[in-house]
């Protein structure tokens, strides 16, 4: 699975996710992260793209939950994403997200996730494993 989230200096947000799915998946299976609200979601608060085990991500409505926690509970992007990923079954979920304020976060509960981010103030991060 691959994905990207972006926000411009005016707070406009967008997300995109693409995948081939699981190795040895059943023919006809629809159920990975590029499903609106499950692994891919954006509104005026944040943009989210998830990766991992699609079935777990759909059951958890991972991407939408991050946005909902920001909208209805007033959590920060980082806290909302952390809460959702920690609540997902271990080893199933990673996500990238940006907020309308230009914040960025990339939590995961798998061993690793190929990921990178950059912000206008010059911050750049490229990482693979958890805890980096």
């Amino acid at each position, binding site marked *: 699975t691959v994905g990207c989230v972006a926000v411009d200096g005016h707070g406009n947000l967008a997300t995109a996710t693409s995948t081939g799915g699981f190795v040895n998946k059943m023919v006809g299976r629809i159920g*990975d992260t590029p499903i609106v609200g499950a692994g891919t979601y954006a*509104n005026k608060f944040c943009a989210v793209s998830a990766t991992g085990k699609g079935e777990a991500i759909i059951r958890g409505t991972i991407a939408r939950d991050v946005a909902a926690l920001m909208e209805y509970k007033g959590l920060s992007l980082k806290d909302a994403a952390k809460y959702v990923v920690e609540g997902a079954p271990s080893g199933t979920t990673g996500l990238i997200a940006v907020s309308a304020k230009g914040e960025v976060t990339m939590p995961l509960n798998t061993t690793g996730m190929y990921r990178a981010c950059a912000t206008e103030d010059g911050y750049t991060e490229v990482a693979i494993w958890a805890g980096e």
Partner: protein
Amino acid sequence: MGWAIALHGGAGNIPRSLPLERGKPREAAIRHCLQIGVDALKAHQSPLDVVELVVRELENHPNFNAGRGSVLTSHGTVEMEACIMDGNTKRCGAVSGLTTVKNAISLARLVMEKTPHIYLAFDGAEAFAREQGVEMLDPTHFITPENIERLKQAKEANRVQLDYTQPIKNVGDEIPVSEGDGQIG
């Protein structure tokens, strides 16, 4: 407030012992795609254009699990999925079950912009792709030798594999049979 971008190339059980020759190309590709996205944001392209641009680049990279490099179904075929969404308007588009479309993410965007719907799949999505004139390729374009081997290993183990989860020989056997990193979803 300023611009920000993040991207991923899949999650899973990526072993820390991953051989450099396997990890380095992916890391280099991630850096390359990040720079493409940063340059596009600096050039004041819209976030929607930026995420499509970056994901197209990732789809074209055979070491990731989308587009070329797409993993195989139990029948040895590819069935690709993509989704795109605009935060301001909540407009979105998604596609599933693609077998010949070079860049699924761009077809998802066309679903968003050219249809009254948000999701097309399988034959209907392929027909829409032909109608829109997007680049289509023989399904063999997407299949790499590495993914043929991954499918073989997964079948032998009678299981599915997530992005980068190491192939295992038998159900319940956690010992990797190769130095590889089998892809899952």
